[in-house]
């Protein structure tokens, strides 16, 4: 007898007990769907996180310390920034973007004042930090060189001055400190939202006072893998410039944002793993259900097995039939579970972000689909194995005598 024939017999056996077959597969269906949906949710959160903070993976921030190791701290300066942006000494550094910052006040002409802070920087700042514009544009290199009095606002000042209306802010005149600026753009919220962004020279000339001091340098490495090398190059260059032999003598702190990112990502992975483990338990429970039903089936159909043997079924034919019954049962459950899981994830990807703003849409992981289907087939084989073997070993006369 061919496997094909055995499958036919198995299908017929399952169809003869429709309700029971359906209920049995339910456990597998729910288990598989749960695994797929939970993995998709975890995936979505993780990729949402990577999207929001992915630029951190290549970022190194260098901050000037507030307190010196030896009296007043040495400032970071434009010269330091230029040194960091050196393709020979720092081959793994793509760019070094200076930020000069400090507290300022903002107001509309004749309106009340609000405290905020200024970020004086270069035209590439938004790209480097991966901030998106809601409306308008960033200042360009010409405006930067010409110390143009233009500003890009973050949501905080927009809230204070324009009741959150970015469209109204665009093109308006605002006073920062005592100087009038034109708003040329508004950036999206990221968490660092109480800030106005202006060209570096503008900030120094009109808001912070002169000098070439820089409070922060944002260094971008060639790739996430190149971050350790870039970090080493950055510290080597700065140590050299500050004549530091011992890291304890540094007046700056260089931090790879990657490690933070990695930590959060790892925590997210663990959380996903735990939820998937819970889902996997329901898959196992479903498997036990299949095993249970197959055992009952074999007992209940002992007489049938006797008849089959009497009319010439070999042991193998019986084994195949019952093994295939359980595998088809579990495999079918797996397929329906996949449809349900993928369907739910897709529906959630559409519905959730609408219901909860900023909710990262679930992303179905092909591996989770393949693995959970594989596991359900395996469950079918394992859960069916023992009962099928028992059925195959039954002696025909004893099976026939069974009531």
């Amino acid at each position, binding site marked *: 007898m061919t496997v094909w024939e055995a499958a036919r017999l198995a299908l017929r056996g399952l169809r003869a007990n429709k309700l029971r077959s359906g209920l049995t597969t339910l456990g597998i269906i729910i288990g598989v769907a749960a695994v797929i949906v939970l993995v998709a949710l975890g995936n979505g959160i993780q990729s949402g996180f990577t999207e929001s903070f992915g630029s951190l993976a290549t970022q190194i921030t260098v901050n000037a310390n507030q307190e010196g190791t030896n009296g007043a701290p040495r400032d970071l300066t434009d010269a330091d920034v230029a040194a960091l942006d050196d393709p020979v000494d720092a081959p793994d550094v793509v760019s070094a973007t200076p930020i000069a910052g400090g507290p300022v006040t903002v107001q509309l002409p004749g309106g009340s004042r609000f405290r905020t802070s200024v970020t004086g920087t270069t035209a590439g700042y938004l790209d480097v930090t991966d901030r998106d514009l809601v409306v308008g544009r960033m200042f360009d290199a010409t405006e930067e060189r010409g110390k143009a009095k233009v500003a890009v606002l973050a949501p905080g000042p927009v809230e204070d001055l324009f009741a959150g209306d970015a469209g109204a802010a665009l093109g308006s005149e605002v006073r920062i400190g005592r100087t009038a600026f034109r708003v040329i753009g508004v950036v999206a919220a990221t968490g660092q939202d109480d800030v106005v962004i202006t060209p570096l020279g503008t900030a120094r000339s009109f808001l912070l006072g002169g000098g070439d001091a820089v409070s922060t340098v944002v260094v971008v490495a060639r790739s996430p893998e190149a971050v350790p090398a870039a970090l080493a190059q950055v510290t080597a260059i700065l140590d050299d410039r500050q004549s530091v032999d011992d890291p304890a003598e540094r007046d700056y702190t260089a931090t790879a944002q990657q490690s933070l990112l990695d930590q959060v990502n790892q925590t997210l992975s663990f959380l996903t793993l735990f939820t998937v483990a819970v889902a996997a338990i329901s898959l196992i429970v479903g498997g036990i259900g299949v095993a249970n039903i197959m055992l009952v089936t074999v007992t209940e159909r002992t007489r049938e097995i006797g008849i089959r043997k009497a009319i*010439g079924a070999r042991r193998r034919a019986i084994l195949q039939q019952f093994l295939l019954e359980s595998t088809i049962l579990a495999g079918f459950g797996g397929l329906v579970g996949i449809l349900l899981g993928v369907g739910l994830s897709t529906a959630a990807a559409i519905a959730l972000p609408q219901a909860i703003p900023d909710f990262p849409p679930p992303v179905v992981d092909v591996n989770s689909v393949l693995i959970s289907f594989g596991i359900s087939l395996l469950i079918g084989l394992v859960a069916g194995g023992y009962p099928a073997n028992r059925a195959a070993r039954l002696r025909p006369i004893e099976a026939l005598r069974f009531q």
Partner: protein
Amino acid sequence: MIELDAVTKVYQAGKVAVRALDTVDLTIDEGDLVAIMGPSGSGKSTMMNILGCLDVPTTGHYRLGGTDVVGMRENALADLRNRRIGFVFQSFNLIPRTSAARNVELPLVYAGVGRRERRDRAREALARVGLDGRGTSMPNELSGGQQQRVAIARALVTRPAMILADEPTGNLDTTSTREVMELLVELNDAGRTVVLITHEDEVAEFARRVVRLRDGRVVSDARQEALRR
């Protein structure tokens, strides 16, 4: 030619050993119609199980068409049952929730016969037992007599040399009994060996030979003019 040679079957029921068959010698010619009779517990079913290769003797030999069945492997026995023997049971033993045609086809499935041929032969066999057109009926939609005829169709679909029937009319009324016996006689006339167990004299009257058992031994063995043909 079917030969039982000093066949003994001992069942171990707890501590007591039951001698269900005790050194039975019996030869059945091809094409014969033999009735095996005897009181309850005399060993009739045991003999039928051995003749049908469902069970093996404790001692002795059973030769079917010249080959000794004792010592054969399980698969060989299964094949032997499939090709050479057709069974008819007292309780019909159709597979539930499976159509008459599928039941009749089943031995052919295990014999590895192709689908189309299977379907044709099943239809043919059902027609032969007077059930043409009932192939799609489920067992529980058929009367006892009809179920037994489906079972006979299943027994003859592989064209076996021997048909074994253990009280085939035990659960049937007079009319159905007659129909079933006429079918068995017809098969016998077509050259098949038929061995049937019964304790009804009216059924035994169809046989050419009557073997009587008591306590596992053959106590009488007589040829008779088939009375009811």
